[in-house]
Every structure is written in C-alpha cells, then in structure tokens.
C-alpha cells in the first residue's frame, strides 16, 4: 500500500466506520445521565437543535474537507494556510492522546469480561472496582508499578487495534460491518431483559419525563452542545481522515446526516437499556432511582454490574453481553482515533499502513502503561478532562475559523452540493461562522473560569499542570516538530 491512497470498500463501509467512530462509550454511559439530569425528555429539544446547528454542520465540514483535499487534518489545514499545518498536526496529536488514555477503559472492560464469568464483583461492586481492579492509590503522586492484569488488558486492546489497522482502510471496511451492528444487537438484548424486569418503567419515567423549566437554564443548552460535540468525534481529525479515503465523487451531506442521526439514535436507545436496568436495581435495593443513577465509570463498572448481579437468572451471560458491548463500542472509536493521527504520516511520507500501525502501537503501548498503575486512574481522569475540555474545544474553534473565514466557504458549499443528495443551504455557513464558534467560545470561557476558580476534582495544582496543561503543551511541541519536518 506504500504510496497509494487507500479507499473505502463502499459508501456503506464509510458510513459504518463514521458511525462506529462516533458511537462509543459516551453514548451509553454519558448521554442517558446527562439527559436525566438536564430535564429528561425536555433535553431532547436543545439536543436536537445542537445536532442540526453544530453537530451535522461540523461533520459535513470535516468529511467534506478530507474528501476534497484527499488528506488528513495536517495536510488539509496546511492546504488552507501553510501555518495551519501546525494546527492540523496538533489536532491529529489530540486524537493520538485520546486513544492512548481511552485504551485504559478497554483494558478495564477486558478485565471485567474475564470476571463476568464468575461475577467476582458480586456484593461488593464499588470495592471491587476501586480496590481490586484499579487498586487505586491515594493520589496521582502515588503511582507504583503497572498492575499486571491491566497490562494484559491493555496489550489485548493494542493488539486488536494493530490487527485491524495493519491492512488499512480496506480491512477497517470489513471490521466495522461487525463492530458497529454487534453492540446495537447486544444493547437490544439488554433492553429487552431490562424492560421485562419489575421497576423498569420507574427508571424510564426518570429518563423521559420532561421538565421544561430546565430549558430556561443556559447551562442545559451548553450541555446539549457539549454532548453533541464530544459524541460525534469532532475536532480530533477523525472525520477528516475518514473523508480523505472517499473518492472524488463521493456524496457527503447525506452521509453526515446519517452518521449524526445514527449516533444520536444510539444514545437515545441506550438510555432505555440503562434506565430500565437502573429502575430494576432501585426497586430491588428499595431506593429511589436517583440514588442508584450514575454516569461514566460509575455507571459502567459499578451501577450496571450491580444490577447484573441482582438479575433473577443468567447473570454471567448478561455480564458477558454488557462488557462485550462496551468493548465493541470502544474499539472502533479507538482505531479511528489512531487512524486520524497516522494518516497524516502516510499523506506526507508515504509510509505503509502496516508500518504506521506497528510503530504507533509500539510507541503508544508503553506510554499507556502509566494508566495501569495504582495512581493511573487519577492521571487518566486529568488527561481526559484537559484534552476534551480545552484541547478539543480549541481545536473545534480553530477549525470553524479556518474554514469559515480563511477558506472560500461558499465555494466549498457549492462543491459539496455538486454531488449532494440533500441540498446544503446557507444555514450551513451561518452554523460554521457564527453558531458553533460562539457556543464553543462560551464553553471554553466557562471551562477556563472553572479551572481558575477551583482545582479540578481537588487534585493538587502540580498534577493538573503536568498532566493537563503539560499534555497539551507536549502535543503542541510535537505538532510543531512534525509540521516543520513535513515542510522541509
């Protein structure tokens, strides 16, 4: 494959891969909780507005830019303005940073998959996660050596990523035909099981009953935009890289709409699987639903596994189904992120896809071992917070500015409309130039303000400086070095 550009097997495989990249763990462990906390069913209103005024326009921008310029983020932004090539490398570096810490969650899921066979967490779910799986220390300064079974889980994750990516996009085209529909089928199994349990409707009531009064709070609208922005794998260069593997005559607008709607449809669907099970757990424990509701790792590795142990039958089977769902949801987001970074190297230096996959995994695996130590959870939390809350938001802003103001966006719209199945109207330009940047600017300002006023989660300032700002600076330096090398 050296020198030639890989192509998707078909349009279907491109759309499946884009959906696979967008649909990840956040659809299951974040959206349902955010919706429940932000007005229940009423949250759908700002959520849909955010989808059509920011999510889909950004998807069209990224897929279209990659397809038109036949290049990943570094080459695409370098083509808009030479100096923006640095930004392109930095954005691609963010995706490399994300996949390195994201692999930690998959390592935990592998460990839990093994323990599902005997439901090792039964009766002590939280203690099992914190003390036995993570062996969590007192803080980020107490790291200790890597924990062997997490290293095994991490190694399995990186081996899987290497095997999928070593033959490039053609292999990805085949893999996503399994890894995208499989978690949906498994979620459907979990939903059916959940809905047939007592108390399920109580959980769903909490999920869907609207509180329209919440819509008056600006924070709810920002949360909707944030949820859409992070859920669609935007600003990290993934969709630009994926778009670059499309042919010159490929349709973009409708494909972006399908990707956005499928991603949000999965989130909405997953909410029923989660809340039906939480409703059952609340009934069994004799607690109100809010007392058993959690998000993130607390939902995936504590609340949901607790509910699984309380099932009347086939507990181990449902444990296996749940963790296979998490693994299949996560793996295609992980290899998409790696692809976003390595495609830039292929574009510039024509390295083979196998070599790029191998070298990246050999470099990333040792770095990711930081997160398998006893203090690794804290570093994972800090790096995740800074890359998402600052890195991706800044990247999104620069991306909107670059295309909205430095590129001939009207001509770009006309270009997209030449092959589009759905006419792209002037609203797209307004969304890119004004709506999305304004919202991202407010989100960034609020994140900076919060960070100045209080240290995140009570971590020592040195830890957030090193793990948070330090990561962003290292990626900026790396981006600069790669940009200079690629220019020379």
């Amino acid at each position, binding site marked *: 494959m050296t020198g030639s550009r890989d*192509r*998707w*097997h*078909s*349009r279907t495989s*491109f759309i499946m891969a884009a959906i696979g990249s967008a649909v990840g763990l956040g659809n299951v462990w974040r959206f349902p909780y955010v919706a429940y906390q932000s007005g*229940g*069913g*009423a949250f*759908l209103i700002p959520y*849909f507005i955010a989808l059509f005024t920011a999510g889909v326009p950004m998807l069209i921008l990224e897929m279209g830019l990659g397809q038109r310029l036949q290049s990943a983020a570094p080459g695409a932004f370098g083509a808009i303005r030479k100096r923006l090539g640095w930004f392109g490398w930095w954005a691609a570096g963010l995706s490399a940073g994300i996949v390195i810490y994201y692999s930690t969650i998959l390592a935990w899921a592998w460990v839990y998959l093994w323990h599902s066979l005997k439901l090792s967490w039964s009766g002590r779910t939280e203690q099992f996660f914190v003390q036995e799986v993570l062996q969590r220390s007192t803080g980020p300064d107490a790291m200790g050596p890597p924990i062997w079974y997490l290293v095994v889980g991490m190694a399995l994750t990186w081996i899987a990523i290497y095997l999928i990516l070593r033959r490039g996009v053609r292999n990805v085209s085949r893999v996503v035909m399994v890894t995208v529909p499989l978690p949906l089928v498994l979620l459907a199994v979990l939903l059916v099981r959940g809905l047939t349990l007592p108390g399920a*409707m109580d959980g*769903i*009531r909490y999920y*869907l*009953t*609207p509180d329209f009064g919440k819509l008056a709070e600006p924070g709810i609208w920002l949360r909707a935009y944030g949820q859409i922005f992070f859920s669609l794998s935007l600003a990290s260069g993934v969709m630009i890289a994926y778009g670059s593997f*499309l*042919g010159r*005559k*490929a*349709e973009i607008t*409708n*494909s972006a*709409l*399908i990707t956005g*709607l*499928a991603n*949000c*449809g999965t989130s*909405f669907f997953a909410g029923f699987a989660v809340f039906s099970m939480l409703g059952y757990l609340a009934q069994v424990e004799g607690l109100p639903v809010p007392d058993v509701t959690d998000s993130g790792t607390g939902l995936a590795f504590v609340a949901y596994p607790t509910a699984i142990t309380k099932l009347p039958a086939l507990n181990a089977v449902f444990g296996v189904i749940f963790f296979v769902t998490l693994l299949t949801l996560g793996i295609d987001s992980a290899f998409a992120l790696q692809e976003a970074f390595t495609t830039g190297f292929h574009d510039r230096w024509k390295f083979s896809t196998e070599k790029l996959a191998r070298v990246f995994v050999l470099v990333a695996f040792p770095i990711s071992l930081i997160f398998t130590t006893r203090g690794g959870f804290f570093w994972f939390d800090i790096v995740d917070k800074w890359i998402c809350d600052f890195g991706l938001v800044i990247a999104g802003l620069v991306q909107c500015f670059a295309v909205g103001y430095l590129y001939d966006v009207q001509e770009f719209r006309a270009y997209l409309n030449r*092959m589009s*199945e*759905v006419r792209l109207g002037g609203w797209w330009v307004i969304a890119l130039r004004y709506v999305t940047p304004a919202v991202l600017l407010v989100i960034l300002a609020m994140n900076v303000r919060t960070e100045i006023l209080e240290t995140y989660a009570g971590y020592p300032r040195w830890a957030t400086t090193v793990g948070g700002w330090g990561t962003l600076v290292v990626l900026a330096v790396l981006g600069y070095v790669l940009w200079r090398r690629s220019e020379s």
Partner: protein
Amino acid sequence: MPIMGWIMLAFGCAVLYGGLGICLSIAIRNRNRKEPKP
C-alpha cells in the same frame, strides 16, 4: 409514565429514527448512481 413522557418518546423517535429512515431511503434510491468507486 406521565403522558408528557410518552409524547417526548414519540418526539425523539420521530426525529431520530424517522429522520434516519428518510436519509437512508434517499441514499438507497441513489446508490447505483453515486456509489464511490474503490
């Protein structure tokens, strides 16, 4: 579940799955004409 909960359920399904159905049907209708060649 209160009636408003059911209404929001119908609203969510209509926008997401209805919208997805429309987009997919457009794509399927055009598949022979616009399928990108490998």
